[in-house]
């Protein structure tokens, strides 16, 4: 665990919380991701005590990294889990200082936040990543509607290559996370088939399966190198070929 921001996923269902934490954690192994779910009696619902306990445990683990930019981003699934997290933060000023609640889709927001946190981003950036996930469907539709790769982009790409997906499962969750994390490190602005390549969600939503040809484009500092790096990653098959 080297990331300075941890995630806590609060659901009405213990199974859903655990599953979402497993999914997000798998895509961001450096990030502490905990799920907490279910009511005081163990059924569907929300437990203040369980939420407080989890937040305290996570903050204890993070204590060294709890300095500037560190902390915990929480996502809740529905009404009472969101309300109970807000209540927990109102009850305890010490928690409120280090913990922030994201208003974001539960699964998509958790995955996006985890991948962003993995790169060492600060709490504000992780929160912004979770929040931005709410717009992913609209962003993907816009990219598809503009006929990605068919028309010239408004800002001429400084690097542009096509690459064929080689691994059998395509650009699924793990490869998408690897690509988006790498792109976030590179600094250049990279798109794949018109979608933002630093967004794990948008990459996954491309549904790029084996044999599909993808257009990789970049602008900004190191654009050509960024295109080469991404193309090589995809060509290498993510260790799956």
């Amino acid at each position: 665990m080297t990331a300075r921001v941890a995630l806590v996923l609060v659901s009405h269902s213990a199974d859903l919380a655990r599953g979402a934490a497993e999914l997000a954690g798998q895509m961001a192994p450096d990030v502490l991701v905990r799920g907490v779910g279910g009511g005081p009696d163990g059924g569907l619902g929300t437990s203040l005590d369980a939420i407080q306990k989890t937040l305290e445990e996570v903050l204890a683990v993070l204590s060294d990294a709890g300095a500037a930019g560190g902390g915990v981003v929480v996502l809740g699934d529905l009404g009472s889990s969101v309300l109970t997290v807000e209540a927990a933060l109102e009850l305890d000023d010490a928690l409120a200082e280090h913990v922030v609640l994201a208003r974001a889709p539960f699964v998509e927001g958790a995955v996006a936040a985890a991948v962003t946190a993995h790169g060492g981003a600060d709490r504000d950036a992780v929160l912004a990543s979770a929040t931005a996930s709410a717009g992913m469907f609209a962003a993907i539709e816009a990219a598809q509607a503009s006929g990605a790769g068919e028309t010239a982009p408004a800002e001429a790409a400084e690097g542009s290559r096509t690459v064929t997906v080689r691994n059998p499962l395509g650009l699924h969750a793990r490869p998408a996370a690897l690509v988006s994390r790498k792109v976030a490190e590179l600094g250049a602005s990279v798109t794949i088939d018109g979608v933002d390549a630093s967004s794990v969600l948008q990459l996954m939503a491309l549904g790029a399966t084996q044999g599909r040809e993808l257009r990789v484009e970049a602008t900004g500092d190191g654009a050509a190198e960024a295109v080469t790096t991404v193309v090589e990653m995809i060509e290498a098959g993510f260790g799956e070929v």
Partner: protein
Amino acid sequence: MALDADWAERWVRRTADAIADAKGELTELDRQIGDGDHGENMDRGFRAVVARLDDPAAQPGAGDERTVGDVLKLVATTLMSTVGGASGPLYGTAYLRAAKVSGRPQIDPPAVVAVLEAALEGVSSRGKATVGEKTMVDAWQAAVDAAEAAARDGGSEVDVLRVAAEAADKASTATIPMVATKGRASYLGERSAGHEDPGARSTALVLGAALAAALAGPTSADPHGAA
């Protein structure tokens, strides 16, 4: 007669009794327009509150120094921990904010109004609801408006609580024809009309218990309430 921490404890115990008696009714109201657990959840929450009041190790505040706010804070944290549904953080926040303005051994009529205002503010800010959306806010707002007027006219603590309880009861009934625009009932849209809001009803029960506790005075048979 100012209201003290013993009154607050009687209020809470009477609320628990009223909720237990109305458990079936609240659950039936919630089954019609919500997820059918309001009676069960509130009953579980207030039974847990009473259990803590009965536990010598969990007493709020320090003996004679006990404040109204000490009792209300215990209600807040217990409801948040035990209710499990949205009414836990909603009522919990109401009691928490009310506790913050009542950290004194006794409260006078303007302070009773402040307690009700704080509770309303807690429910509406936590639930992001306003009047007319067929929620418990309708009952709390009516209670606050009536209580403010009574206190302004120089009414006693009992006067303030009486008009507040009556207003909440009327406002709860008045939610019947409304179309819900907040909370679970809003998923039903127009079909939510014709049913009373369970949260508004439980609010009326809570405020009715506050009045009954004031009327009962310190001579009631409450185990910890006797002077």
